[in-house]
């Protein structure tokens, strides 16, 4: 057990650092938060630069143009790019980290050829259409209906919390294709062209005042059957396949930012109570960094441990403590959302909710790791 990087990992880091030193000064300054056309240009331009330099698709297999990097290299890539304050993955998130890996695992040759190279080069932006007003934590309870009509599915229903729904050209869409089957067994996974007739996209105004999320309404939207990924009614399994691509690195960028924010608070903390709280937060963030190392190591060995299921809950709590401490330390300086520390406090309120609430995380830990029985079902 050690924390020492191998020579080849050190070499990877050095080469990446050198490239970032050259590449970052060539970028324009980041666009305004609400200027979505500019944000799409900025983020996809960055994706193209990563592609040209051989850093696109870090986790993707080489046969699909990826780098097939080890989990440790993926960790270093995220650590170094975040530390250098390189652009975030931004609008490329769904395509690179979710839809792309799903197509790699489950797509047909045609589907892969049509989308994977374009995602990797930043030519194609994807969004996610999973959640519904009635299907949040209970995602498998989704009701958007797809009915077969010749070579098409006809989709009706509503999606919500669609990441990048208003800028995506394609969406990963979960629909119910068999309303009579048990809820996990009647779902299919479709590639949705967002310019199809009958789609209406309405951006959601979050408590930050704007967002990357939309509601998407479907009125008799035709999706070709050839756009289905995986077998009909096998969409729940297809969705979960994507999770197996996770190599313990999902929160690396978040962690680097959180530790930077916590370190920046040091000189501002004078009150003894706040000092203790900051000490606790620093200890927690350091420990979560160590837990990331552990999760990445175990992912490399193909033997994920308990930390993989625990990380999000623990990070949510640590990040909330950091956010509250920031607000207390900033005092009346905390009333301007242009201050990134305040904006971060607001943004991070979503962390205990998105991608599995902390309550759902505790159920998962209790049931899968501790072996506790499920609560009585109400269905």
């Amino acid at each position: 057990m050690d924390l020492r990087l191998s020579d080849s990992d050190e070499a990877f880091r050095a080469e990446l650092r050198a490239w970032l030193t050259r590449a970052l000064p060539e970028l324009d300054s980041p666009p305004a938060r609400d200027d979505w056309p500019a944000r799409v240009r900025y983020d996809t331009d960055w994706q193209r630069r990563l592609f040209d330099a051989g850093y696109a698709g870090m986790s993707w297999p080489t046969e699909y143009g990826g780098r097939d990097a080890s989990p440790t290299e993926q960790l270093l890539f995220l650590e170094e790019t975040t530390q250098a304050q390189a652009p975030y993955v931004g609008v490329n998130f769904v395509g690179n980290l979710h839809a792309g890996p799903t197509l790699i695992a489950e797509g047909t040759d045609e589907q892969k050829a049509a989308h994977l190279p374009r995602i990797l080069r930043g030519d194609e932006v994807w969004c996610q259409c999973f959640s519904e007003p009635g299907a949040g934590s209970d995602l498998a309870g989704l009701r958007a209906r797809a009915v077969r009509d010749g070579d098409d599915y006809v989709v009706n229903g509503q999606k919500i919390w669609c990441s990048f729904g208003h800028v995506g050209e394609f969406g990963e869409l979960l629909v119910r294709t068999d309303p009579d089957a048990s809820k996990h067994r009647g779902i299919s996974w479709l590639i949705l062209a967002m310019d199809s007739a009958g789609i209406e996209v309405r951006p959601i105004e979050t408590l930050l005042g704007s967002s990357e999320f939309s509601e998407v309404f479907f009125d008799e939207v035709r999706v070709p059957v050839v756009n289905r990924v995986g077998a009909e009614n096998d969409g729940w399994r297809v969705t979960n396949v994507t999770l197996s691509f996770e190599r313990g690195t999902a929160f690396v960028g978040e962690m680097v930012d959180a530790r930077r924010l916590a370190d920046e608070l040091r000189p501002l903390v004078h009150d003894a109570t706040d000092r203790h709280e900051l000490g606790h937060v620093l200890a927690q963030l350091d420990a979560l960094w160590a837990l990331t190392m552990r999760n990445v190591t175990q992912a490399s060995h193909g033997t994920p441990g308990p930390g993989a299921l625990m990380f999000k809950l623990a990070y949510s709590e640590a990040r909330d403590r950091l956010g509250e401490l920031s607000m207390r330390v900033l005092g009346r300086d905390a009333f301007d959302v242009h201050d990134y520390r305040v904006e971060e406090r607001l943004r991070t309120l979503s962390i205990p909710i998105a991608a599995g609430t902390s309550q759902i995380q505790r159920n998962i830990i209790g049931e899968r790791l501790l072996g506790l029985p499920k609560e009585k079902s109400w269905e």
Partner: protein
Amino acid sequence: MNFDLSEDQRALQEGIRRLCEGRFDMTRVRSGFDTSVWTELADTGVFSLRADGFGWADVSLTFQELGRALVPGPLVWSHLAHGVVDGVVGGLERPRRGEPAIVEHPGDLDALAVIDDAGVALVRPADLDPGAPLTWPLDPLTPMQRIAELPAGEPIGDARLATAWRQAGAVLTAAYEVGMAQACVERATAYALEREQFGRPIGSFQAVKHLLADLAVRAEVARAAVDAAACTLDDPETGDVRRAVSGAKVLAGEAALGNAKGALQVYGGMGFTWEVDVHLYLKRAWVLNTAFGAPAAHADALVS
């Protein structure tokens, strides 16, 4: 980077766990520390691990297992002192002038190590004034004696040794605490599966399940911190020793205390009895939180 247990480390962990299960069951643990405990641990090599070529990460894993089993005694001090002085060694930070010293396991010591900023000194138990034993020590497995004034003792090392012992002592104490925290998760989970109310195991209720999930996460995060601190002691270039040590002591202390209290809650009325072991974990956590720097002091150190 390979931040997971090696094959050898798994074998070591398994070996110590089996030793504890076979030789230190709760009946024996509840009878407290005596020389036979020390001898048995010494024969197994627990105190000589470093001299035998093992690293701090290995020692830390060993102490996690000892803590899980709540093996009593001045184990951390005896490990630190190995090779310097033989036998059962206790220890403490020298109290500020005019303040009494609380010496643990006073009747069992061959020597008492006293640390201050100047270095480490060794006091012979015969030179201690008899003081006043605490007739009802908070932790029944850690007998204590209040001594008005500690003798200066014989210096055995300078400030560098004091720093080294403080850091390693904090890590090993934290390791022991993480083991305690993990034991509380295991015991409370087992009880939640067995205890039924409203016709179901109480562990099926989300209110209880979520509490247990929080205990499990607290132990696992603290374990990562302790392992990282031990690895950093082994290879200081890979991190910041001071920061790693303090972080481990903060989180392990919180985990031992928080998980003992959480387990007590899961056990309900039984948790309030002498019969159920949880109170022994809780009381030890309070004691250990005062050793090698309180969590609050380490939290403070992390900010400065």
